[in-house]
């Protein structure tokens, strides 16, 4: 079982990566409680920024980006975390999902999360990020996690869960969907897919 974490943080270290790691840990803990031990791989988009731009220009991915795309395509569950830029996901985050095959995320359990300066941006997850992945037909878990700067230094109150509580809940939701998926579903190789497409075509 493969859990792939996509982080679009730009600084090193970044709070986006910090949040991504907390979410991955929460999902892994819940899967462990269910007797599952997923492998986890983090895709740092910062390291692929040039490759992503080159793919947009040339139409094919350089080798490192190709490996990251393959990892996302073969994932059993995904966590995607972006900083909020200008009222939406960052351009780098969007560009990465622009160069992935539109069917690659179909049916995959996905946890979305974002970071920002203040909690006023938190609905970006619902207004921008969730529709993007709905379009890509991923199965997005109900809890989307937004971490504002102040969340890193405060707990919950009587009305709201603090960040750790939201992280745990979201991680558990993702884990439940991943655990419920049929296991051992190996990705078909390209040629198999091509052959099936071709079988549907008749040239006469």
């Amino acid at each position: 079982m493969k859990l792939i974490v996509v982080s679009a943080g730009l600084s090193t270290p970044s709070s986006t990566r910090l949040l991504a790691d907390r979410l991955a840990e929460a999902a892994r803990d819940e899967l462990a409680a269910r007797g599952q031990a997923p492998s986890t791989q983090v895709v740092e988009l910062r390291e692929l920024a040039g490759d992503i731009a080159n793919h947009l220009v040339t139409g094919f991915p350089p080798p490192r980006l190709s490996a990251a795309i393959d990892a996302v395509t073969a994932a059993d569950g995904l966590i995607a975390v972006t900083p909020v830029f200008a009222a939406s996901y960052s351009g780098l985050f969007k560009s990465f999902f622009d160069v992935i095959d539109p069917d690659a995320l179909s049916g995959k359990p996905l946890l979305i999360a974002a970071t920002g300066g203040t909690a006023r941006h938190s609905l970006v997850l619902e207004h921008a990020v969730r529709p993007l992945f709905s379009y890509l037909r991923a199965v997005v878990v109900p809890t989307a996690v937004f971490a504002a700067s102040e969340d890193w230094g405060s707990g919950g109150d009587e009305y709201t869960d603090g960040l750790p509580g939201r992280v745990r809940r979201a991680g558990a939701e993702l884990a439940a969907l991943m655990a419920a998926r049929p296991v051992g579903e190996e990705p078909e190789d390209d040629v198999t897919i091509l052959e099936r497409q071709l079988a549907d075509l008749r040239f006469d």
Partner: protein
Amino acid sequence: MQFGIFTVGDVTPDPTNGRTPTERERIKAMVAIALKAEEVGLDVFATGEHHNPPFVPSSPTTMLGYIAARTEKLILSTSTTLITTNDPVKIAEDYAMLQHLADGRVDLMLGRGNTGPVYPWFGQDIRQGINLAKENYALLRRLWREDVVDWEGTFRTPLQAFTSTPRPLDAVPPFVWHGSIRSPEVAEQAAFYGDGFFHNNIFWPADHTRRMVQLYRRRFAHHGHGRPEDAVVGLGGQVFMRKNSQDAVREFRPYFDNAPVYGHGPSLEDFTEQTPLTVGSPQQVIERTLSFRESVGDYQRQLFLMDHAGLPLKTVLEQLDILGEEVVPVLREEFAKGRPADVPEAPTHASLRAVREVSAA
């Protein structure tokens, strides 16, 4: 094995001096390049077809007819002829006419085209691209093979008792290649009919090219046209050469960096590593080109892109001298080594006519 060049026909400013050729200059340059191809012993010249600036070749058979009159041996081809938006009746007529004028030195490469607005400009719907390619090609084949055609389809007006004139030279239709970069449907269409498959690999990594050609070869055999190694494969290539490889890199870099398609993207070094582009000495070009065979098996046609991105005509002609004098003779010799005797050559008018005479007898 055939060697040649294919041109896009772009009018691009020379990035080293900012000068943009006029359309007339570019068209005349394309002709000069074709004549040079014959002079230096290349086999094929292919022109693109485009219907929007900055490209000039909207009327390939006009240009190829003119070149035919000024050459003796050169095979005239296209890269590509738009099977989606051209009327198949006009393709049948135009290329049969060209065949007669060129004494059979004609084949063509069909493509769907990659410019969205061309479909509506020519009254078509881009969402029907694949269906247009299927129906139009099926009609084109009949127009060349049957003297009188009754036909009804989805995309053009029906034909009753229609005869496409002139009839193909010696009743041998031009050989057809199907060109594609990423559509497996095109490999299937080529395989279905037993036509040639040209993978324009110049912007793509080798493993993708290998998969597409393998698919075509397998389906070619599946459809009963022979063994996988009997399939007719063409590949693209892109080179810039100087005696000293550092000089080649230095001279080509500004053209690469500002080129349409890939300019302002990856570095010359990365792109060279990831695609067939080779910038260096003639020996480097020879080694790289010979390595294509490892990806796709023994193949039939190798076309190079030599004249895009604003390279001045003088430079392109120098490149063709190097290609024809230093590179292609070695490639002919080396590709012949280890090539099984039963791997076919690319069909020509003469070879197709011979097959026809045998089957008629």
